[in-house]
């Protein structure tokens, strides 16, 4: 198996994986095989995403890690110990669990929901609640939400509480079963960013199940693509899965845009930033403030972009409300995907580049970004296949 060879090649000095699946099979009484002889090493302190179509056994695989499902054969090791030897409820208390439908207990307040596992572990109510209100803040919720009941929260807030609850006993492992798939795309993106931000501080071992390959490549340090019947199709970094799918199944599952999505893994450092003509929004009303280039960028007093002024319509644009709205922003150091998107989404064809404070530093051009992309592809081709084309 690929996983075994790769862990061997790292040598004996490599740290033992946090979770090891050893030839795990799950066959349901009806004879249906959900997971078939799966071996997988899950790295410590990293996010491992299990992704695949419905019926690929990804959720079953994850639920075998906390013994919500018992494998038919094979073993699951956590920290080198076979979990079959541990009491199921103790094992589960050592792993945070977040599910799609928040699973919060409707009869308990938000604070008491978060405090559930510490309370089970015998932490006094007062201490557990204090810790719970700290966690509310960690997941980005206002402290006064703690006294509410789950039914009084929005879907996104419920998922945040679900994450806080999973973190309450500070478990080394988090199991997340499609936690963000029931919220709208905007909230989903917020929650994904929050998870990555939290993970930078916490460095938990996270097993994340999703059917969304985009989510998998955004969140995963490693991604395991599973095929129908619980067969491992590829286990690699997201970058590698997008660049070099191991089979037609993976290529098909990753989808049509994989070439474009792969740009998310390419540093945009080399993108050339051109100077750009700007005009302050306050001076738009002044007819003497002329513009000299076809497209001029209007900025506020702090230098942040507000919109575009086309030269031939200069006289019609008197205030911020008359500006032509712009596209997405390219922050210096972002990926090539963001750079290209900024250039393509701007009405002027000039992607606006900003610094970390959001001030305009110049513009980027689609043509130059494409050249960079092509150069990178050619040098990758040389490195991987010894050919320039």
């Amino acid at each position, binding site marked *: 198996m690929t996983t075994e060879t790769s862990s061997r090649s790292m040598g004996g000095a490599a740290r033992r994986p946090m979770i090891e699946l050893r030839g795990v099979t799950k066959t349901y009484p009806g004879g249906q095989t959900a997971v078939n002889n799966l071996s997988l090493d899950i790295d410590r302190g990293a996010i491992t995403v299990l992704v695949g179509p419905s019926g690929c056994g990804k959720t079953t695989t994850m639920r075998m890690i906390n013994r919500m499902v018992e494998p038919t054969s094979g073993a699951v090791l956590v920290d080198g110990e076979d979990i079959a030897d541990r009491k199921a409820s103790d094992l589960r208390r050592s792993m945070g669990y977040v*599910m799609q439908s928040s699973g919060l207990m409707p009869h308990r307040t938000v604070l008491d929901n978060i405090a559930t596992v510490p309370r089970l572990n015998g932490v006094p109510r007062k201490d557990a609640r204090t810790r719970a209100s700290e966690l509310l803040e960690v997941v980005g919720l206002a402290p006064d939400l703690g006294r509410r009941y789950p039914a009084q929260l929005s879907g996104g807030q419920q998922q945040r509480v679900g994450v806080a609850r999973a973190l309450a006993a500070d478990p080394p492992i988090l199991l997340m079963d499609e936690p963000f798939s029931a919220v709208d795309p905007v909230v989903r993106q917020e929650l994904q960013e929050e998870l990555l931000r939290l993970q930078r501080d916490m460095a938990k071992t996270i097993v994340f199940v999703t059917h969304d390959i985009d989510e998998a490549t955004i969140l995963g340090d490693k991604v395991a693509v599973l095929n129908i019947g619980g067969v491992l199709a590829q286990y690699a970094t997201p970058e590698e899965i997008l660049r070099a799918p191991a089979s037609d199944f993976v290529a098909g599952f990753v989808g049509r845009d994989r070439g474009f999505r792969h740009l998310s893994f390419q540093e945009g450092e080399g993108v050339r930033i051109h100077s750009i003509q700007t005009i302050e929004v306050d001076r738009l009303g002044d007819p003497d403030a002329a513009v000299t280039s076809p497209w001029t960028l209007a900025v506020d007093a702090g230098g942040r972009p507000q919109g575009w002024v086309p030269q031939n319509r200069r006289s019609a644009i008197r205030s911020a409300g008359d500006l032509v709205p*712009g596209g997405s922003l390219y922050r210096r150091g972002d990926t090539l995907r963001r750079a290209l998107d900024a250039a393509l989404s701007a009405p002027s064809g000039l992607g606006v580049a900003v610094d970390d404070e959001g001030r305009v530093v110049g513009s980027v051009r689609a043509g130059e970004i494409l050249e960079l992309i092509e150069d990178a592809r050619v040098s990758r081709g040389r490195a991987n296949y010894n050919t320039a084309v």
Partner: protein
Amino acid sequence: MDYTSDNLFAQMGQWLVAPENWSGERGIPMRILEHLGYTGLTMLIALAVAVPIGLYVGHTGKGRVVIVSGIGILRALPTLGMVFLFVLLAGLGLLPPIWALVLLAVPPVLSGVYAGIASVNRDTVDAARAMGMSEAQILFRVEVPNGLPVILGGVRAAVLQVVATVAVVAYINLGGLGVFLVEGTQLRDYGRLFGGAVVIGVVAIAVDLLMALVQKFAVSPGLRAGRAPVRTQDSGRQKAVASAQGGTT
């Protein structure tokens, strides 16, 4: 008793306000106490029988078919007939008629407990198990509190039925408010007959209101139906994250 009117309702009113009916061993207050005593005893036995079975079946899902058909059979039994049957089998005394009433109270309690537990969202139960709760903790800390509105609904229905039906024990000289119905019929004293019926009705309503009050305080505010979720502003950090992800020019 001597009435000053031939009108049934006037006689009922006179009977209800006559001071001699409100005192002594055979007065209304004493009969109410007897009535409530039999109701309480019946409910205690019915709860002791039905609650454990309901919890077991609701939690495990085993034996559903048995209890559903069992409840159907119990509901079809005529209580008065059962009272006489048990008395014939076991003789006079307190318990034979009480058993007949227990058979009346068990079905609503059993179906309430079973349906209450079974109605709890399976995701909530799954999450509780995945967090490491034992089966007993899941049952008593998650399923019972969340099923409580339905469970108490079943108990309330049972209490109401029993309060209204306990009157039958008067047929075998055990007292209770049914005495006024039996005596009223035998003596053709319609003031007493209807007056007794009114008292039973008032007692039943009072007990039901009391149960409603219990239900109100026992059920978590988080479960009150029909309350629109309140949307609130997320905290500042969330907004900062959102705006950092890509504004527009």
